[in-house]
Every structure is written in C-alpha cells, then in structure tokens.
C-alpha cells in the first residue's frame, strides 16, 4: 500500500481571491511576517499499486483526469509507502 499526497494549486498568473482574503485576515490578526498566501487543494490517496513508481503514475493520471483543472491549476504528487 502507498500513500500519495496530491497538492493542487492555482497557476501563478491566476487570481486567487480566497488567498487574498485569508492573507488580509491573517495580517489583521497581527501576523506581520506574512507576505503572501496562495490557496490550493490537498488529497490523500491510499493506493494498492504494485510499486511506488506505479502509484506515482496512477496518482498523476488521476490529477490530470479529475483532481486538477489543468486550465487554471498545476499539481504536485508525493508518494510513500503507507505506514
């Protein structure tokens, strides 16, 4: 069993209104070291693929097919054996 963690985030040029609102709120709450917030999605996939490589390939395909919207988002996948 493998655990794939998937991070989906907006491309740099795409506006992130949610990130802006969160950023402003955190600043108002006094977090002065904060510069910028960008938001995204996070998925944990439990996979029974045969190998780590295969698990990665599966997860990446899932990203392209469903989990990310490639018109506005990029993604990253990280795989490790499930504990």
């Amino acid at each position: 069993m493998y655990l794939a963690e998937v991070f989906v985030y907006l491309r740099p040029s795409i506006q992130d209104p949610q990130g802006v609102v969160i950023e402003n709120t955190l600043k108002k709450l006094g977090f002065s070291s904060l510069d910028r917030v960008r938001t995204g999605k996070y998925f944990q996939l439990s996979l029974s693929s045969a190998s780590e490589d295969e698990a990665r390939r599966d997860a990446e395909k899932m990203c392209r097919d469903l989990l990310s919207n490639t018109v506005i988002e990029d993604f990253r996948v990280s795989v490790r054996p499930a504990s």
Partner: protein
Amino acid sequence: MRTCQEVELMNLKMDEYNEIVRRLGREPNDVELGVFSVMWSEHCSYKSSKALLKTLPVTGPAVLQGPGENAGIVDLGDGQNALAFKIESHNHPSYVEPYQGAATGVGGILRDVFTMGARPVAILDSLHFGSPDHNQKNAYLFERVVAGISWYGNCMGVPTVGGETKFDDIYSRNPLVNAFTAGLVKKDRIRRGLASGAGNPVIYVGSKTGRDGIHGATFASDRLDENSDNDRPAVQVGDPFSEKLLLEACLELFETDYVIGIQDMGAAGLTSSSTEMASRSGTGIRMNLDLVPQREENMSAYEIMLSESQERMLLVARKGTEDAVRVIFEKWDLNFAVIGEVIADEELIVMHHGQVAARFPLTALEPPVYQRPVTPRPARIFSLPPESLKSDPLVQFSEMIALSPCLRYAGQVFHKYDFQVGTDTVIGPGADAAVLRIKGSSSAVALNLESQARLCYINPFEGIRAVIAEAVINQACVNAYPLGLTNCLNFGSPEKPEVMWEFSEVIRGMRESCLFFDIPVTGGNVSFYNDFGDSSIHPTPVIGLAGLVQGSIRQAEIVPASIFLAGELCENLAGSVYLRHFHQTPGGDFSIDLEAVKRLQALVLDCHKNGFIHAAHDISDGGIIYSLLEWIALCNGLGIEINDQQAFSSTGVVFSELPGRVLLLVKNEATARFISSAKDQGLPVRRIGSIVKNPVFKINGIDLDLENLLGHYFKASPELRCFTVK
C-alpha cells in the same frame, strides 16, 4: 507596414487595418492596434448585426432607456420604480472553463445592471447543452456551468428565479450559457455610462488588474476548435465576494450626487469602458496607466488596456468629490484610484511610464458597419413516412420520458440556485414565468426566458414568432403583460451567408411580432461564431421578457377541479422533443397565428382578473401530456384523470409543442362563466379532465404507471423528489 499575418493575429481583416491607417493618417502602434482590435471585434462592435438591429422597435410609453446603454429600463407604473434588465452570453468561456466561465458571465450581467443604478433582484439563465446521458464531456460541462452560476449568483445574494434548460447534441461542441439580470431602480436615480465635464476625475474601483482574459472579446468572436481547450489566457477567475462589495459600495455611492457616469469593465475592460463613456458624451479621456491598481508585476500598457479582470468599474465623478468617493470604496475594502480625467477634445490619451502609449481621436474608433451577404434558403422541411406516427402515444410517452434528458425535472438545476433570497420571489422557478413582488409598491414584475432553436432552424422567421408567442403566453399564465424585451441572439459565423440570412429572418420576425404585441426591445446581445469547425449551432435567439403583473399577485394552486384546454387542438410536431427523440429530425413546416395567440393571451388574463382559475400552465416541451405530468409532480398525493378521446389518441396532438394552447384549472363555481367568456372571445375551450384526490395518471381509462413516470421525471435529482410538494 504590418504583414497580413500580423494583422490577422489581431483578429482584424487587412482592409480593416488599412482603414485604421487611413483614419489615423499613420500606422497604429501596438497598444493602439490592440484597442482597435477589441473595439472592432464582433462582440464589441456589432459590425455585422448593427444595420439589422436598427430595424427593431425600441420605443414605447414605458421605455426609460432603450438599447445603447449597459441595460434597458422600463417604468413600472407605480410612480417611483423602474426595472433595468439585460441578457448576455458567455458561451465560449464556458466551454473552455465551464465553472469560471459561467460564473464570470453572471458577474458581468450583474454589473451591467447595477451600473444603471439598480439593485439586481433576479437572475435567469438559458442553458443549451449536448445530451449529458451518453457523453461525459457534455455531462461535465453542464454540471460545472450550473455549479458556476449557482456559486456566483448565490454569493451575490441575488435570487436565480427562472430560466430554461435545453439539450440537443448540436450544442455538444458549443454549449450556450446566457444569463439575464433584472434590477430595481428609482426612476429619478438612473445612472448612465457618461463621461462629461472636462476636468472631472476618471476613477478606477474594484479588484486589481491582472493578465486574465486578455483578448476575451476577440475570443468571443472566434470560432471554437480542437485547440480551444488550450485557450488559456482567456480564462478569467470570478470573485463574487469582491463583486458583492462592489455592488454595495456602488449603491451607496448612488445615494449621493458625486457620480457623473459609470460603466463596468466587461469585455475589453478599460479600453471599452473609457472609450465608450467618452464617445457617448462627446468628450475625451486622458489616463495614466501607472495609476491602475495592478495584481501582477511588469504589466505592459497593452496588457493593462486589454485585461478583462473581473469585478472592476470605471466612473467619472464631479471634480472635488474624489475623497468622498474614496471613503465609500475604502469602507468596503475595495481598490480606489483616480487614473485620469475627462478632456474636452474627443481624444483618447493613454500614458504609461511617462510616455504616450496611445493617442488618437475617438471618432477614428467608430467601428465599421457591414452589410454581410445573405443567401436565402427555403424552410427546412423534414418529412416522415406516415406510418411512423401510428404507434400508441401513451406507450411512446413512457419511452420518451425514460430516455430523453429534455423531459426531466428542471429542479435538478434550479434547486441549486438560491431562488428565494431577497424575500420577493412569489413565483419561483418551475412555473411558466417568475413573479417578484416589490416591497412598498403595488406593482409586481414577471420575468421569463424562452427559445425554440429547432423551430428557428426549420424556419427562422416563423421560429422567432413562435418564441415570442410562447413568451407572451407564459407571462399571461402568471397574470402578466409584457413591458419590454431583451434578446440574446446566438448564431454561427456571420461570414456565412446562410447564417446571415437566418439572422436577418429572425430580426424580421422579431420586429414583426414586437410591433404586433406592442413590446419594445430595450436591449440585447449578439453572439456570433457559435461554430465548431465547419458546423454551426441552430440559430438560437433567446428572448427575455419583463412584464407587469395585472392586479393582485398570488401563487398558483393545484387542487381538485376541472382541467380545460384553451386554444385549437394542434397536430403539428415541428420542433418537438418527440421528433427529435424518435426520428432525430427537427420536423416539418409550421406557421404561427399571432392573432390567435393574442386572443389566448386576453382570455388567460381575463380568467385571472375574474378569478375563474386556480392555475394556468402553457403547453411546451414534451406536449400536453408532459405539461400535465408537471402538474402532478408538483401536487404530491393528487392525480389527473383525462377523458378526451380526440385530444389524446393521436400522436400529433399529444406531442405537439407549438405555442397557442394553455391548460387552465377552472374553479368549479366559475365553470359556466368561464365557458361563456371564452365563447364571447371566439376561442375554443374544452374540458379534458380533472385533478383528482388520488395519485393516478389516467387517460381515457388507461392507467399510466405514475410511479414509474415520476421515477424517470426525477431521474437526475431523485433526492429532490420529496421536497417538491407545494
């Protein structure tokens, strides 16, 4: 001198380019060329449609604002309120990114209405998609578009009170997403997109400018093809939260007299808003782009001028009120910047980094007007072998409802919309038209959207007459009389002579029916280039009507009583779901008798006035039998028994969808008076059956399996079934 290729990359024709050079007396620089390119795009310039649109009737006693502004406005006759309303397409963006595309479409039409000084009170949407049943892409587009509309409208707190959902595979590669908004404005508080008074400040408010949607307007004027999926720069991301703040701030501003004019930055952004406001006022504008609030670094003048970032407005205020205006926008956490001023010369001067980025006389920007070639064609008549209509219509109905996505509960869409926020929705989605009361006024408004693309495909002239007839009858069903019409004309490429002919026929039919019913056209939108590769969509004019409820308002009641059919029995299947489903054809010849429709309208309004009826419902998609089923679905526990051999034995009569017939639920005590009233008006009416106290659907003694029919009706949204009870 630029090459032909460079010019075409800007979506201009070489002779258009030469005309620009002639008018300027020199070559335009890149920024100027960009400005001309978007302003002369079909989407912004109406260059192919303007000559024909001019023929529509646009005046009337109720019209306070006709075409030419961001929205039309009609007087509601109560001495204080007026209604601003308009429809817009967002077809291509919704294909490329359905959720954001549809959402920003809603955002755009809302801004068009609130720039007029109106608080938006209702959204309606017209959706045309390929069948979602066997095609994942269609299903995906449909679901995401509905989610996008729902997100934006709900977040704005504007109820989505009606619309239409149509499926036909002709739209698989080019779905249509049209959104309509109506807003209320006090008659003496109407705002317009003007930039008068040299020296007055030009102010930018709202979200920051980014690189999104550059060339959106030209994109909308381009056909879709295999590469459209990669058309990324055109994708704009919506932020309904910012728009809500912008709405509240603008309405607060409109309470003052600081504003001279305001316009939203929609298609072609800063370019169109600045040049249009100045042109309307015979003035010019000088702007410094360094002062424009920017989200991204190192944006060029070209990018700033052409960006279509959402949730932005341009306004011209009285000199000296800048700080007061600033206070209002800062209260709502919005960006505010004075970016220029009005100048007396009719000129656009754009500064960037201390240099002139663009400068030319605004008169040079006046777009060309084309008389595109037109090739007439005869009505498309598709005939069927006569025996094909011989089967039992009741059996066919069961089959159709099981398989056709066109005959499913539209609540799968509209229950995802907040249709009640505002607490004015007296009649919401699911009825023939929506009705909104106005708090503090005796007036109430009725709104509906209609289209009949298959009829327009067979015969565009008769087709649009059918659409308007149906829209008028739908208004009558909720006791309303139309005040004004807006339209969204979705067509293929105007460079195809046959499309241009369809367009001109639709305009001719619209002109004729509007004159006939005395309905002024107060605005509209043209969406050409709805093509995929070489094929075009059916001509799909969508009509939005705004009407005034006659007398007191109330909801319909489905209770045990007699059902009458008013209007001639019609046996023509043209354009029907039936022919589409069983014979994959739009159908044969037809024509619409507007005189008869007008008599029917009068009768239905009369029935309301005299209190003869509990409810009225027009016959439309799916035919009379489907309209009856819609009634049963709404009145959990009750049923319908029909006893009328003539009306329910022939396939033609059962499934005909042409406008001109209405179901009336007549009160027992009023039956005699109703019948004699219909006779006086020379309109045939017949009692076809009644609403009964047990849940059955019986036609001439045959018990249709109601449970099974309702199962199919609610197939796309079974979870809603127990919540539809009235």
